[in-house]
C-alpha cells in the first residue's frame, strides 16, 4: 500500500512536470499555426482584391494576357489555402471558389433557379476565351472577380475564426493530399488555360508547414521518424511538381510520395494520440480519417449512404440481402431477380444493350450499370432519382417493366416463407411477420450491395506500394487518363466515378451528347432526357440529357457502354470522347459538360488508355451466388437462383 502511494505520487510529479513543458509546446504550436492561417488567408484576400482591381483597368481590345500575372498570383495564393478550405468547407469551394464551371440548381428554391457557376475555374474560362478582350468577356471577368472577392471575405472570416484543433490541422493536410492526387494533378482546376503540375506546389508548402509545427511535440524517436518520413514524402512530391504536365509519371508520383504521405499524416496523428474525426461525435463520416491509403478498401466509410454503422451492418443482414438479391420472389412473376440484370460474373451488369423487360418482349429504358462500388454514390440510377441506396429497390419492384409488383405485394409474398420470416427476425431483431417490411427489404439489399466493393485491381495494388506488374502501356495510359485525355476530371480517382473529391458527398452527372448508335457522320441524338426527368426539382435544361457518371472500374466486363448501351467496345467509347462528344461531331448540345475540343489522341494513346482501364478490373470475392433460396410452402417453391431470365 505504501509502495503504491509512492508510485502514485511519482506519477503525479512526472505528469505535472511533463504537463508544464507541454503547455509551452502546445501554445507555441498553436501560435505558429495561427500565423500560418493568417498568412495564407491574407495573401489570397490581397491577391483577389488586386486581381479585381486589375480587371477594372482593362478595356475592350486589350490583350487578356495583361491579366495573367495577377490571375496567376491569385491562383497560387488560393492553392496555398486549399488544404484548409477544402477541409473546412468543401461546399463553399464547389459553390464559390473553385468548383467546376458548370451551372447548378438552387436546391431549396421553390422555383427551378439556375445558379451560375462562380470561382477560379469560371475566371479561367472567361480569361482564356479570347486573347483580345471583348466587352462581354470583360463584364464576365469583372463579375466573377467581384463575386470571388465577396465570397473570400466570408471565407477569410471562416478560416480565421474556425475552432482549429490539432485534429483538424492534420485532417486538413490529408484532405489537401487527396485533393492534389484526385484533382490537382489531372488538370481539373484549369478548364481553359494550360494545366501545370506546379499549381500544386503552394498546397504542398502549406502541408509541409503544418507538419513542421509538430516537430517540437515529436520527442520520441518513433514519432520523429514518422514525421520526418512524412516530410520526406512532401519533398519527393514537390520534386514531381517541377515536371511537365504530360511527361510526369503519375503512377510513381502517387506510389512513392502522395499515397505514403496520405498514410504518414494519419500515422503521425496516431503517434501523437491526437483524436480522429470518428471520436468527436456521432456524425456522418464519409472519408475514413484513419485510412492508410487512397487506394484500398478502407479509404471510405462504406455505410455513409446506408444509414448503417459497422456495428449495425451484420453478416446476417448481408446474407439475407444476398438471398433477396438472387431471389425472383421479389418480382410479380417469380421469374426475375436483381441478379437477372446485375449478374456477378459481368461485374453486376448483363451484357445487353438495354436490359430485358419483364415478359421478355421488350427492353427497359436503359443499360444496366455495375453495382460494384455503387455504395459510394450519393444518388442512384442514371438519372440520379433515388437519394438513398435503400430506396433503389422500391423503384425496381414497382416498375412495370422490371418487377411489375408493389411493395405491399412483395412484402406479402415474402411473408409466406417461414424461412424468410426467421431470417428477417434474426437480421433485424423484430419478432414475427412484422420483421418483413419494405424498409427492411431495402436495408438488407443495401447491406449486401455495400459489400460489393473493389479496391484490389492491379492499379490499386501498385499505387499502394505492392509489388505487382504494371506494363509500360498501362503506365502511359494512366498518365493520359489523369492528364492529357482529361478522363479523370469527371471519373475522379480513387473510385474513377463521378464522386467528387475530396469530400465525396456529391455524385455528378454529365451531358455528353451520346448518339442513338455509334456514328459520327450521320448520327442521331439519343432522345432520353436523363436527369431532367428524374426528380421533380431538377427538371431543368441544365440537366437535359445528363446522366450519372459511372465508374470505369471493371469496364473490361461491363460492355456495352453509356446509358443507352449504344457503344460496344472501349475503342468506340474512347473515340467518342476524343472527338469531343456530341458537340465534337457537330451537334448543338446545350449545356454539354464534356469539353468539346478534339483531344488529339494518337492510336497508341488510345491503346494505352484502354490498357489502363483494363488494369482496373477486380471482382475478387464478389461473385458468389447462393446455392439455394429460402423455401416457400406453395407454388413459389420452384424458383431459379438469380431468376429465369
Amino acid at each position, binding site marked *: 500500500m505504501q509502495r503504491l502511494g509512492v508510485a502514485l505520487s511519482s506519477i503525479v510529479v512526472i505528469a505535472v512536470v511533463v504537463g508544464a513543458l507541454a503547455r509551452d509546446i502546445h501554445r507555441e504550436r498553436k501560435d505558429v499555426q495561427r500565423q500560418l492561417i493568417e498568412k495564407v488567408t491574407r495573401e489570397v484576400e490581397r491577391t483577389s482584391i488586386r486581381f479585381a482591381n486589375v480587371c477594372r483597368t482593362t478595356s475592350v481590345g486589350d490583350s487578356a494576357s495583361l491579366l495573367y500575372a495577377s490571375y496567376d498570383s491569385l491562383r497560387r495564393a488560393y492553392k496555398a489555402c486549399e488544404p484548409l478550405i477544402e477541409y473546412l468547407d468543401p461546399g463553399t469551394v464547389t459553390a464559390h471558389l473553385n468548383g467546376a464551371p458548370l451551372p447548378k440548381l438552387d436546391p431549396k428554391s421553390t422555383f427551378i433557379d439556375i445558379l451560375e457557376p462562380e470561382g477560379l475555374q469560371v475566371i479561367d474560362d472567361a480569361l482564356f476565351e479570347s486573347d483580345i478582350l471583348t466587352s462581354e468577356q470583360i463584364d464576365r471577368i469583372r463579375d466573377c472577380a467581384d463575386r470571388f472577392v465577396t465570397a473570400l471575405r466570408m471565407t477569410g*472570416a471562416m478560416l*480565421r475564426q474556425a475552432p482549429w484543433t490539432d485534429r483538424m490541422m492534420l485532417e486538413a493536410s490529408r484532405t489537401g493530399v487527396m485533393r492534389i492526387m484526385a484533382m490537382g494533378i489531372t488538370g481539373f482546376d484549369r478548364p481553359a488555360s494550360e494545366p501545370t503540375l506546379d499549381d500544386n506546389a503552394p498546397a504542398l508548402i502549406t502541408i509541409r508547414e503544418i507538419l513542421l509545427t509538430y516537430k517540437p511535440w515529436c520527442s520520441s524517436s518513433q514519432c520523429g521518424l514518422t514525421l520526418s518520413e512524412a516530410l520526406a514524402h512532401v519533398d519527393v512530391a514537390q520534386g514531381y511538381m517541377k515536371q511537365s504536365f504530360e511527361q510526369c509519371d503519375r503512377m510513381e508520383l502517387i506510389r512513392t510520395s502522395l499515397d505514403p504521405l496520405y498514410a504518414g499524416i494519419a500515422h503521425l496523428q496516431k503517434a501523437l494520440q491526437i483524436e480522429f474525426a470518428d471520436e468527436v461525435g456521432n456524425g456522418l463520416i464519409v472519408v475514413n480519417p484513419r485510412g492508410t491509403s487512397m487506394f484500398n478498401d478502407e479509404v471510405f466509410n462504406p455505410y455513409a449512404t446506408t444509414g448503417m454503422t459497422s456495428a449495425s451492418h451484420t453478416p446476417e443482414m448481408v446474407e439475407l440481402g444476398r438471398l433477396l438479391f438472387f431471389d425472383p420472389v421479389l418480382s410479380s412473376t417469380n421469374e426475375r431477380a436483381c441478379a437477372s440484370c446485375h449478374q456477378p460474373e459481368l461485374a453486376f451488369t448483363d451484357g445487353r444493350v438495354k436490359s430485358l423487360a419483364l415478359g421478355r418482349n421488350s427492353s427497359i429504358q436503359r443499360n444496366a450499370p455495375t453495382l460494384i462500388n455503387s455504395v459510394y454514390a450519393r444518388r442512384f440510377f442514371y438519372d440520379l432519382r433515388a437519394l438513398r441506396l435503400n430506396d433503389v429497390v422500391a423503384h425496381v419492384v414497382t416498375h412495370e417493366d422490371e418487377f411489375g409488383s408493389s411493395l405491399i405485394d412483395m412484402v406479402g409474398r415474402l411473408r409466406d416463407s417461414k424461412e424468410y420470416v426467421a431470417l428477417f427476425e434474426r437480421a433485424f431483431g423484430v419478432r414475427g411477420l412484422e420483421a418483413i417490411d419494405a424498409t427492411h427489404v431495402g436495408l438488407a439489399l443495401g447491406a449486401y450491395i455495400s459489400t460489393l466493393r473493389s479496391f484490389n485491381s492491379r492499379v490499386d495494388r501498385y499505387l499502394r506500394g505492392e509489388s505487382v506488374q504494371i506494363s509500360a502501356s498501362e503506365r502511359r495510359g494512366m498518365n493520359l487518363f489523369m492528364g492529357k485525355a482529361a478522363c479523370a476530371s469527371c471519373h475522379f480517382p480513387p473510385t474513377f466515378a463521378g464522386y467528387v473529391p475530396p469530400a465525396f458527398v456529391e455524385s455528378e452527372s454529365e451531358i455528353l451528347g451520346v448518339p442513338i448508335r455509334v456514328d459520327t457522320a450521320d448520327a442521331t441524338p439519343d432522345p432520353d432526357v436523363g436527369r431532367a426527368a428524374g426528380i421533380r426539382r431538377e427538371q431543368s435544361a441544365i440537366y437535359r440529357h445528363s446522366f450519372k457518371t459511372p465508374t470505369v472500374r471493371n469496364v473490361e466486363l461491363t460492355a456495352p457502354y453509356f446509358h443507352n448501351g449504344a457503344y460496344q467496345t472501349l475503342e468506340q467509347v474512347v473515340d467518342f470522347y476524343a472527338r469531343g462528344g456530341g458537340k465534337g461531331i457537330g451537334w448543338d448540345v446545350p449545356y454539354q459538360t464534356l469539353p468539346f475540343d478534339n483531344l488529339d489522341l494518337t492510336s497508341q494513346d488510345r491503346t494505352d488508355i484502354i490498357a489502363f482501364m483494363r488494369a482496373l478490373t477486380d471482382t475478387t470475392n464478389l461473385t458468389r451466388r447462393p446455392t439455394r433460396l429460402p423455401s416457400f410452402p406453395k407454388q413459389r417453391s420452384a424458383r431459379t437462383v438469380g431468376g429465369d431470365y
Partner: protein
Amino acid sequence: MKMLGLFAASCIAVSAVSAQDFPVRIEPVTMIPYLQGRVVVPPSPLKYQNIFVGGVDSVETDMGRTAAKQWHDYIGYAADETGASLGYLIVNHEMIEANDKIGDGGGMTMFKLGKKADGTLEVLDQTLPDGRKGKFFNVDFKNTVGETGMNCGGMSGFGRVWTAEEWYQSSNKGINAEGKGFRDTSDFVIGSKQPSGFPGLDGKTIKRFQNLNWMVEIDPKTAKAVRKYYNWGRQGFEGGQVMPDGKTIFLFEDGAAGRSILTKFVADVAGDYTKGKTYFYKQDAGKYTGTWVEVPNNPATDWDILVAPHNWAKTKGITGFTRLEWGAFNKTDGKIYITETGQDRPGANYKSALADGWTLPQHTYDRAKEQGVAVDSSAHMDYYGRVLVLDLNDNSVRSFLEGGPYTTDAAAVPSRYPEKHLSNPDGLGFLYVNGKTFMVIEEDLNGTSFGRMPNTGMRGTNCEAWLLDMTKAPTIDNLYRLAISPYGSEITGFASLDDGNTVLINSQHPDNATISDAAAKNSLTFAVTGLKQLVSSIEKDNDGRTQGAVSVFPNPTSTQLNFTSEVDAALYDATGARVRVVRNATTLDIADLATGVYYVRFTDGTTQQVVIQR
C-alpha cells in the same frame, strides 16, 4: 508487484507521447487517485414517441385503406373542446404524387391523439361522419375543393386548420410533372363539388393549375376540406397566423427572393374569413416602418388580380422579402415573428424585382451595406437567413435574430460555435412553459457552405430545432438545442399541446437512419414530452455555470454531459479506451453511447467517473 508494473507502464506511456492531454488509452487503475466525483447521467426526462410514420402507417380514404403519403411538414392542431382527448392533429404532406386513392398532388393526414394513464400518447380509433373507420385519415380534397399540391405550411386557430400550398405553379404542364403529379389537367369549375363559399365564383371555369396555391381550410374533425380562400390571393404561401381577435390573419409567402409577399387579412366579422379586406405590406423607403396597401379582393370582380397578385403588387411597389417561411404570434409581447430563410446569391433576383417595381425591405439594404456591395449586386450574399419581427404598433419589420456563424465582423461571431449556430430558419413557434416564453426555431438548410453545417470532419446535412428564452438577448449563443433530425432530413412542423409539456415535431425526408428504427427512415411525426422539466433545467444549467474548477453535471434534460465552463475533455470507457474527445466545449454528446461506466478526463489530468443510465 503486478500493480507496480502497471504504473510503470503508464508512466512510460505518458512520457513517450510528451504530454498528450488525452492519450488513446488510460489504465483504469491510474484514474483512482484523480477521481473527484461520480456523476450519474440519468435517463432524459424528454420522452420521444413516434406517432405517425409516412409510407408505413395506413390512411382510410373514401376508396379504402392505403399507405399514407410522406414528406411531413406543417402540423395543424385543434384541441378537443370536450376534453376527452388531446385533440385532432393534421399533418401536411409536402409533395406531389399521383395517387388513385388519396388523390393526386399533396395532401394531409388527420388523427386524434389521446393520453394514456402512464402519460404516453396514443392515436385513437375514430369513426368519421362519412363512415370511414380507423386511426389515420387522409383529408379529402378531391371530392370537395379540388386537389392541393406541396402542402407545406399552414395555420391553426379557434379549432380551425388551414394548409398552405407553397409550390407556385404557372402551367398545367408543370403540375402534371410528366404524369407523376396531377394527371387530370382539364379545366376546373369552382364550386363543382361543393359550394366554394364565394357565391360569385361558383360555376367559374379556371385552368387546373390556377386552383392551386391558395390557403385552404380543412375541417380537422371530419377530415374534409372546407374551402380555398380565393379572396386572399394566389401565392406560394408557406405559413400563416390567425390572430386572437378572430378577425386578423397574417400570411407569409415563400416565393422568389425580392418578390415574397407579407399579407394581412382583416375579416368584417370575427370567424368569417370569406369577407373582409386583404392587404400587402409596403415598407417606407429608408425606414423600418411600413403601411398596409389594400388589395382589391372581390373574388368575382377582382379575379384577375387575385389569381396573379404579384403582377398587381409590383405596380404598387409592394415590399418583396427573401423567402418568408413561417410566422408566429408571441402572445407575451404581442409581436409577430417571421422566418426569412434567405437565398445564397439573391442579387440577380433583387435586380429584376426592383426593375419590375418591387421594393426591398430596409434590413436587406443594411445587409448589403455591411458587405460593401450594392443590394442587387451578383456578389451580394444571404447565406444564413434570419428571424424577423413585425411590430404591430408601428408596422415596422426588423431583423430580430440574424443567422450565423460566420460574419465579416469577428466580434459578432458566436463564441460557442460550432456548438451554437443557426442557418436558414424555417419552422417557428412559441412555447409557454412555467410562466416563460420560448421561441422554437427549426432549421431547413439551403446549403452547407460557409459553416452552415459545422465542420468537425463530418459531412452531410442535418437540421436542428432550437429554443430561445425570450427574456434573453436574441443571439445565437443563447440558443438551446432541442433536437437534431436524422441526416439529410428537415425538421418541420411544430404543435404545442397538453399545456406546453408536449410538442409534436416532424422529421422530413431523412437521408440516412439507424438500423433499428424503421420510423427514422421515413417521414415521421414524433412527440416530445417533458418540456416543463426541460425548461426548468435550462434555467438551472445557465445558473449553475461557474468560473471556478470544472465540474461535470448530469443534464436532466437530454443525453449529454455538461461542464461548468468551456473545456477540452475526453471520455474513456470502462476499459480505459478513449471514445470521445471534445474541444472548447461546454457539453459532450453521449446519446449514441452504451450505458455503463465511463471516465471524463480534463487537460489538467483530473478524471471523473460518469455513469450513463438509460
